[in-house]
């Protein structure tokens, strides 16, 4: 009995039918949390005494950066599961995470720039964290490009899973080398990692926003996987029934 759920999870049909209900409430949950937190941040969070109101971008920048980083690990781990246990669903989730993760990395870079301009006077600094995020974006784009290069779905999945795993092993090395590179060149800018003492009233909305982003990620990912399931299982009877039911 114990492992039954694991095998079930490998069945695209089971997943499709089970998530029908989840999607709706997960979407509403994400919407309510994020919309509520934005209202909270915009209306009630006091401005930072150093950075002023641009600090409000922080509440988007941190969650997007987190999704960017976490997405890569999620992608690589699903890729590994797909490679090792040949689980169809893991392959699909890897394929669906890649473009989303790339988009979040891009958004993290954009919000970082928009935060930096009013705060430090420049959109772009080659500091350790920004550079690492940029490289993460390149890693994502490599996986996306590899996925799209192959007509053969199975090969595309396995190759990009391998690449994602190699990337995951490399991320700590890249991070270390970029940090070292940064100390070597000592850019003449303000240290971005300086800890500003954050009051609780400024910190709580951040945590709530992170939860909201996690819900959003889960919601969007499940929706994307559901489409991917339909596309890959279009020959099966149960998908044909779904198509027939859409008779309008």
């Amino acid at each position, binding site marked *: 009995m114990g492992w039954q759920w694991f095998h079930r999870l490998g069945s695209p049909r089971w997943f499709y039918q089970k998530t029908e209900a989840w999607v709706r409430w997960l979407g509403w949950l994400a919407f309510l949390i994020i919309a509520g937190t934005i209202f909270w941040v915009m209306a009630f969070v006091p401005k930072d005494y150093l950075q002023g109101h641009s600090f409000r971008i922080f509440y988007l920048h941190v969650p997007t950066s987190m999704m960017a980083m976490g997405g890569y690990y999620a992608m690589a781990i699903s890729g590994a599961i797909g490679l090792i246990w040949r689980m169809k669903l893991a392959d699909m989730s890897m394929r669906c995470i890649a473009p989303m993760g790339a988009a979040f990395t891009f958004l993290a870079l954009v919000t970082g720039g928009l935060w930096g301009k009013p705060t430090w006077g420049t959109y772009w600094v080659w500091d350790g964290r920004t550079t690492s995020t940029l490289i993460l974006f390149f890693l994502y784009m490599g996986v996306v490009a590899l996925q799209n290069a192959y007509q053969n779905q199975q090969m595309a999945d396995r190759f990009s899973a391998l690449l994602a795993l190699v990337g995951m092993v490399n991320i700590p090395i890249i991070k270390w080398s970029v940090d070292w590179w940064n100390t070597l060149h000592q850019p003449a800018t303000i240290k971005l990692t300086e800890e500003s003492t954050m009051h609780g009233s400024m910190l709580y909305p951040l945590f709530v926003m992170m939860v909201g982003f996690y819900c959003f990620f889960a919601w969007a990912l499940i929706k994307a996987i559901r489409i991917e399931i339909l596309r890959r299982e279009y020959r099966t009877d149960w998908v044909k029934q779904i*198509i027939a039911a859409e008779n309008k």
Partner: protein
Amino acid sequence: MKFQFDSFSALLSMEGHGMYVWISYAIVLIGMLYFGFRPNWQFKQFVKQQKRIQLQEQQIAQRNKQ
């Protein structure tokens, strides 16, 4: 908790930082909406495409019968 702005225009301008704040919120929200609702659009497209393929298959089958 205290409301931080005196007026709606103060909320928009945020002492000169408003443009950066609102643009980043807009960009992130547009990105999220895109990824959240793209599947809905893809589903419609998928159904349409499959219907067309099924129709073609039926037509070919009929022609073969005749």
